């Protein structure tokens, strides 16, 4: 099948006063039509910047330096302003982490959905409002005829995120980018929103790029996952493979830090020792080498960045360790005085399949 979206060698750098922050550095992945790809990583790993780069929503001092973003074969980075605007909100739509601040506070929810429709479709205001009501109903908002005239601050957090999804669906996009769509919501609402996204995807057959730091969300929602670390994708594959047989030591560490149900009470929570390197001064070699239990004594890891290569069907990894043997989780190795757990506790509290 032809890729719905194929990102190749994307580099988005931020030219700050302190230096060049390589937020996204040579990122490549693809999404098939109707597929859900989760982009996983901790804060600052570059997953959101990758997502914003797709629709070229990067603000100064950020710049997309290199790469291709092929959407149905068209390179979005080569389009002029008008061209990219005709993609935004129409073929590729986005939902955001904070549904309250993502809505214009002084316009009704309906007016903002209507705007999204009328930017791309030649239909009258009345018809567009009618469509907005249908959309609100579709995302499960009760009494949509009333809600359509409501201002964003009058809706609850879950309702707002539903309205945001309705806004994104306005033109029935082929690809929906969801940037941490459930992070600002409580756990019950999270589950509802994820369920809604899945069912809408089943109806529309759209591709879904799900940005999250929550491995529980990945396990529940995604078909495939790409794990990002310090601006690079370090491992990509089917969720089932990734969760049972992680190859990259970082992925293994992440999984270990959330699978705490097997630990005896009172035991120290597993963590990955060390901290993420600064995006301003990236090491010459593998960005994870400093914290990697397997890199000790291996000069290759410190001198060269590993290439992103397949280790099995639909499973690619950027690591020098060649034998594609399934590895145990990282518990045993991960000791020592390390700074902070990698994942927020809410993620750790979730059970991983």
């Amino acid at each position, binding site marked *: 099948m032809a890729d719905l979206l194929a990102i190749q060698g994307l580099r988005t750098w931020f030219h700050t006063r302190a230096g060049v922050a390589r937020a996204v550095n040579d990122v490549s992945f693809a999404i098939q039509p109707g597929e859900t790809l989760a982009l996983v990583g901790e804060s600052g790993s570059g997953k959101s910047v990758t997502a914003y780069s797709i629709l070229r929503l990067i*603000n100064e001092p950020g710049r997309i330096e290199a790469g291709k973003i092929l959407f149905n074969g068209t390179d979005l980075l080569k389009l002029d302003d008008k061209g990219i605007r*005709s993609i935004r909100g129409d073929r590729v739509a986005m939902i955001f982490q904070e549904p309250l601040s993502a809505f214009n506070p002084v316009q009704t929810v309906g007016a903002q959905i209507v705007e999204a429709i009328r930017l791309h479709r030649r239909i009258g205001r009345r018809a567009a409002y009618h469509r907005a009501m249908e959309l609100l109903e579709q995302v499960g908002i009760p009494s949509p005829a009333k809600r359509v005239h409501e201002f964003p601050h009058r809706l609850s957090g879950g309702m707002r995120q539903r309205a945001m999804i309705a*806004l994104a669906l306005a033109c029935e996009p082929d690809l929906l980018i969801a940037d941490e769509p459930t992070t600002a919501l409580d756990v019950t609402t999270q589950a509802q929103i994820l369920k809604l996204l899945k069912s809408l995807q089943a109806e529309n057959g759209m591709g879904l790029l799900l940005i999250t730091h929550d491995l529980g969300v990945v396990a529940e929602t995604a078909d495939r996952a790409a794990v990002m670390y310090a601006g690079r994708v370090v491992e990509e594959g089917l969720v089932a493979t990734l969760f049972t047989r992680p190859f990259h030591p970082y992925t293994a560490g992440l999984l270990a830090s959330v699978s705490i149900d097997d630990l005896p009470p009172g035991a120290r929570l597993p963590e990955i020792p060390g901290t993420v390197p600064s995006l301003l001064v990236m090491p010459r070699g593998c960005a994870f080498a400093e914290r990697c239990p397997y890199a000790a004594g291996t000069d290759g890891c410190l001198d060269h960045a590993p290439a992103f290569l397949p280790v099995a069907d639909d499973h690619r990894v950027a690591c020098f360790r060649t034998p594609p043997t399934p590895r145990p989780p990282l518990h045993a190795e991960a000791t020592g005085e390390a700074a902070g757990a990698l994942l927020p506790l809410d993620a750790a509290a979730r059970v991983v399949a």
Partner: protein
Amino acid sequence: MTRNRIPAVARFLRRRIWQVVPVVFGIALLNFLILQLAPGDVVDVLAGEAGAATPEYMAQLRASFGLDRPLPVQLAYYLKNTAMLDLGFSFRQNMPVLQLILERLPATLLLMIAAMGCAVVSGVVLGVISARFVHRAADRAVSVFVLVTYALPTFWLGLMAIVLFSARLGWLPSSGMTDIGADLGGFEYLWDVARHTVLPALSLATFYLAVYTKLVRTAMLEYFGADFIRTARAKGATETRITLFHALRNALLPLMTMLGLQLGSILSGAVLVESVFSWPGLGRLAFESILARDFNLLLGILLFSSVMVTILNIFVDVVYAVLDPRIEL
């Protein structure tokens, strides 16, 4: 939404109108007491102008004006009359104070509205241009322009405008509100007034223009980084649409707050401008009444303008609630 807000507005107005009463009472009391601290009274001035006034004559005048009575009695009379909406009599101008004020009011209102309108409209336009092209040539040019107009004293700017546009170029009249002696009607009269309004209104507007430009620029820049602007961009909206319908629409809120605060101060600014351009408004009347120690008139003007400012502020609150749905009246 708009429909069911109307009863809320009515309720709000009823509540606020009642709050005006104690505020105005307090202002009246303060005005009266503060003016008693100023040396001299209207009799001193009248006597001085007459050139030869005996102490007996002055005492007689004071008695007839009621100025010889003890202060608390004068105050009681003043408050009683004020409560009955009687602003008293100007002994200097030989007319009831209210009549004097109402004669001058239209001129001041015209000047205020013209100046404020001009300041707000150009402030918004310049602020938007600044924000849209931030740190570029247009932004810098606007910055320099508004800084210069802000730094120049209003009266000096007014005088220079008269020198340039009236004396040298002869484009616009320099003083008054109408041409003296011209008996115009209808459209010609309006045109005449409009021509007379340009220079004083622009002079008065310059000071506020700078404030509004900077305010709109800052607010716009803040909103350009906001999440909902990113949403609008992700929807496929053009930059112009984002600027006007999303950023500017929200930036109007702080502008409205500032406008409400400044409605009072623009009256005092009017004193200078009205003097420079011999504009027959309240500001100049107040100035004249101070020189003449015509305290009845001055008290009347102060009270009247404070009522006006209070009411305008209520109006601003209503407009604010209309602009920002998050505000409950």
